[in-house]
């Protein structure tokens, strides 16, 4: 059986970044799983979680790539000269609902030795799930379309995001990292904090770029531009996040070996 080959234009950056995203996430997963053998037992779980995050994302990006290219072909056949594919909103949220709580699990694992409790873990998981469920309802139009509905769910979603930002920068996670006694953990949690503050900000920005959204109207940023940014942001956020965790795990493992 021959595969149907879909021609991709040289300037189709959305397709380009889907391909890169999928392969890069897969490579990162392999790296994290293999490198589990290089760290002490205490840190193996953290690398496993990093590998799972990028592995889950790799699978979803594989399907997102196909969805984007498939819809591109469909619109071409229906006479759309530009033929850009649809944004795979459904797949994105399926991916995020799994990987974002896992990223919150990383914060718990990093600060566990400094006294982080299961209660912190559940609070972060709840906040991230809240953020994503509300975001999906608003972006998909599941419970109604219209600007006021989108804004309402957007605000509710942002509450979850701001809770996580607060916890990581000022609240419980930040305080635990500061009291961990390890410079590496402290710096590592701060680095992860930047991913949450800057890297994850792409998602509410993307939300506001939907048709009729403020950034869509004020700056002309539309959903076709935002797919490229989502793909790049996802790759950097997930792989970069995992690499920071890896660096902490390696440094702390070396310290333990030296004792």
């Amino acid at each position, binding site marked *: 059986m021959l595969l149907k080959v879909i021609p991709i234009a040289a300037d189709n950056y959305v397709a380009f970044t889907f391909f890169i995203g999928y392969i890069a996430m897969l490579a990162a997963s392999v790296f994290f799983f293999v490198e589990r053998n290089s760290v002490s037992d205490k840190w193996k779980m953290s690398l496993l979680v990093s590998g799972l995050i990028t592995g889950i994302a790799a699978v979803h990006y594989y399907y997102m790539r196909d969805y984007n290219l498939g819809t591109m072909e469909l619109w071409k056949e229906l006479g759309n000269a530009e033929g850009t594919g649809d944004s795979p909103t459904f797949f994105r949220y399926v991916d995020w609902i799994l990987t974002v709580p896992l990223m919150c699990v990383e914060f718990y694992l990093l600060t566990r030795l400094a006294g982080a409790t299961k209660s912190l873990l559940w609070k972060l998981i709840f906040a991230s799930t809240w953020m994503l469920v509300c975001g999906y309802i608003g972006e998909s139009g599941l419970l109604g379309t219209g*600007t*006021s509905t*989108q*804004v309402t769910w*957007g*605000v509710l979603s*942002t509450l979850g995001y*701001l809770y996580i*930002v*607060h916890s990581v*920068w*000022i609240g419980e996670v930040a305080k635990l990292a500061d009291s961990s006694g390890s410079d590496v953990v402290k*710096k590592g949690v*701060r680095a992860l*904090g*930047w991913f949450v*503050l*800057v890297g994850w900000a792409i998602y*509410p920005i993307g939300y*506001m770029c939907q048709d009729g*959204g*403020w950034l869509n*109207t*004020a700056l002309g940023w539309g959903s076709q531009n935002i797919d490229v940014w989502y793909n790049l942001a996802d790759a950097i956020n997930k792989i970069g996040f995992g690499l920071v965790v890896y660096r902490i795990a390696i440094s702390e493992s070396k310290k333990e070996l030296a004792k």
Partner: protein
Amino acid sequence: MNKFSFLYLVFIYLLGSVYTLHNDIIIEHQIIGSFLLIALIGIPHGAIDNVILQSEYKMSKFKFYGLYLLSIVLYTAMWFFLPVYAFFLFLLVSAYHFGESQLVNHLSKVKVKKLIFLLWGVALISTLFYYNQKELSNLFYSNYDTKDLNYILKSNIIKYVYVFSNIILVAYLIYLSFYKHISRYEINKEIFQIFLIHLTFFLFPIIISFTLYFVFLHSLKALSQEFKYLNQKVEKTSILRFIKILFPHSFISLLFVSILIILSQKNIIDVSELLLLIVSISVITLPHAIVMTKFYENN
């Protein structure tokens, strides 16, 4: 990120939501919202200058009020005779004061810190003016006695000041980090805050932009520092007691400005409301900035 930057971020997202819903906030609502925030938080942050100066220099109340009022009277006279120069002085004093409150904790050992304070403030104000030139120009042209203040917006002065001050500032902060005068973590936070400020000034109208910066990044931070100072150096103070200490001078300032605005609206004094506001704020900014410089030097 500290709690003040966090609040700033929260309000950015909140305003983003409002703008998505309504596409605009009418000028009357902008003024009301800004006035409330500035009245509740902005004005009070300067309301214990007397406590600070009297505590630091064992100054009598008579001497304090004498000096404070003298500077107000002299500066008001300058506005009367040389309004454009008075406005420039206001911008320079504000720039230095904003920069000082922002960076004083980081630059205690840096020799050229006063210049950097001024640079930070100039970058801030030029950014605000550059992104909102048209709006500012319309605002100044809307009254006969503020038209001349448009001088600063002429012939690309603002553009060059904006570009050079921001480039030099960021470059210098990176230099300080490179030579370990400040940790990379602190520099990253400062540069991120500069980026947030640029974003706000670009996206939102001038009144909202300035109010957000002034209230959350400047006044709240100063109030927090003043509260800690009172507790450590003067007397143990609860938040309620602190508010009571802030109240008298805050009330007097607001009352005075309100009376002037009413007199202007009823054409009893021949000065536009806009100019009255600018003059009122500038004449209390000068002595306040001097007091806070002494405060930061000694603490």
